[in-house]
């Protein structure tokens, strides 16, 4: 692939996906093991679930989907994918 605007933008988007992955891991880890490492007899409960489980598993994934949506909506760009499509200079990706 030519090192054009498309390539740089594609690389930036790949890094953003990795960043979301890292944030999901941090949330999952902090809630799961952070809140859940004590004695099960002393757990707090939210809607009947142990708090560690509620935050890491039930809240975690809709939260990350929302973040992902925002990242894609504001930082990802539409671009032509065809080799013989419009030259990248003609469109800078903004819709």
């Amino acid at each position, binding site marked *: 692939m030519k090192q054009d605007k498309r390539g740089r933008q594609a690389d930036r988007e790949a890094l953003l996906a990795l960043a979301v992955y890292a944030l999901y891991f941090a949330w999952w880890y902090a809630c799961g093991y952070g809140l859940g490492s004590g004695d099960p007899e002393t757990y707090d409960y939210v809607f009947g679930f142990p708090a560690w489980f509620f935050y890491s598993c039930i809240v975690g994934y809709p939260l990350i*989907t929302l973040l992902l949506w925002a990242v894609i909506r504001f930082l990802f760009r539409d671009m032509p994918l065809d080799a013989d499509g419009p030259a990248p200079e003609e469109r800078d990706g903004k819709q």
Partner: protein
Amino acid sequence: MNASTQIVIPVVVYLAASIGIALWARGRSDGATSQGFIEEYFLGSRSMGGFVLAMTIVASYASASSFVGGPGVAYRLGLSWVLLAMIQVPTVFLTLGILGKRFAIVARETRSVTITDYLRARYRSDTVVILCSLALIVFFMTAMLAQFIGGARLFQTVTGYPYAVGLALFGLSVVLYTAVGGFRAVVMTDAIQGLVMTTAVVVVLLAVIKAGGGVAQCVATLRDIDPGLISPTGPNNAVPQPFTLSFWVLVGIGVLGLPQTAQRCMGYRDSRAMHQAMVVGTLFIGFMILCVHLAGAFGRAVFPELPAGDLAMPTLIVQLLPPVWAGIFIAGPLAAIMSTVDSMLLLVSAAIIKDLYIQYRLHGDAAAMPVATLKKASFAITAVVGLLVVVAAIEPPDLLVWINIFAFGGLEAAFLCPIVLGLYWKRGNAAGAITSILGGVGAYIILSLIKPDMGGLHAIVPTTLVSAVGFVAGSLAHPGKEN
């Protein structure tokens, strides 16, 4: 009408619908040229929209293990296994995001239809192509076999019909619709299968919670059975932290190396479809995984004395749902199995006819083969490979069952670095790819066999390290071979 018949009717209707879709998809490829037919049959002419793309990645990824094996372990190990399962949430957006637009653009530039095409264009090495094709054929065929066995056993448990009847019924259906309809039929049925799976898991979970007397009561019952069931590390620390963390490598990073998922990243229509699929796919896969594993874990509160975890899902379905509904919902796991098998089957067929036959017998010139012959050959090879696996599943040979243990990790070890590092690291070359494939697959098999004590760490972690180091070292040791 007895209960088994009532369960079977929805399944049969559902299978018939899948075949109907294949016949419709068949019509789409009429009048194409040979190259056009290949792009259509093996990649649906790169026309997937966002929703279908999301669902086909979710459905090819969700397999027998997600619906029967996974919840079965959750039944034994409680909420700790649900925590572990949730590591799979990022798979869709990570695969689409990391391979991303760069992969889609390169695939179009090089007119790649399979992962092997991409690797051939990237490394220009017959050794890489042949090693990858062989790894793909061997690991996929054994993995399909395992899926068929899982599906047929499930069918047997739920309906009471013999194993062979279940195997014949859905084994033949999946082979038929894949062979007839190609990629377009595969992804269309995947999308429907994804919806069926999602509905199935919600209903089962709600039924379990109701039978268990509500969420709080289910959790309290689990705690009374064993407090470990509601802790993040399981009863008696059965799910230690290093083991769980290994799954971030196995299912998070490693899934990038699965050819059936990666191939979908070259088949979408435009960048908008990719954006949409990243969000929709994450939403669906997270929801499905959470519901199905939670149902397995709470199942213990309803039926605490099952002899084996694998019986948890079938038991919940049969005991808690009326027969016709059970039939509709047994279609969920069957759909998961079929949608995994169909993708694999098509790629094995592509590896044989396209990556090996056309490349080496016809010197890469698909036009040397009349389009009618090509159509017949594609259909025949897909059908024959599928039937071979169905026949093998009647009495599974020990060797194949044994190889299957290495299938998932072996594929990751073989494909991850050549695909991903090749995409982003310019100096990566054929020598690096070959070192990585041989080293990675070798390391995985050896580690899985001798099982050294790694403090709970899964074999995939050192394997990924070996294949990455192999890739870099091999590439640097033979500079000048890169493109």
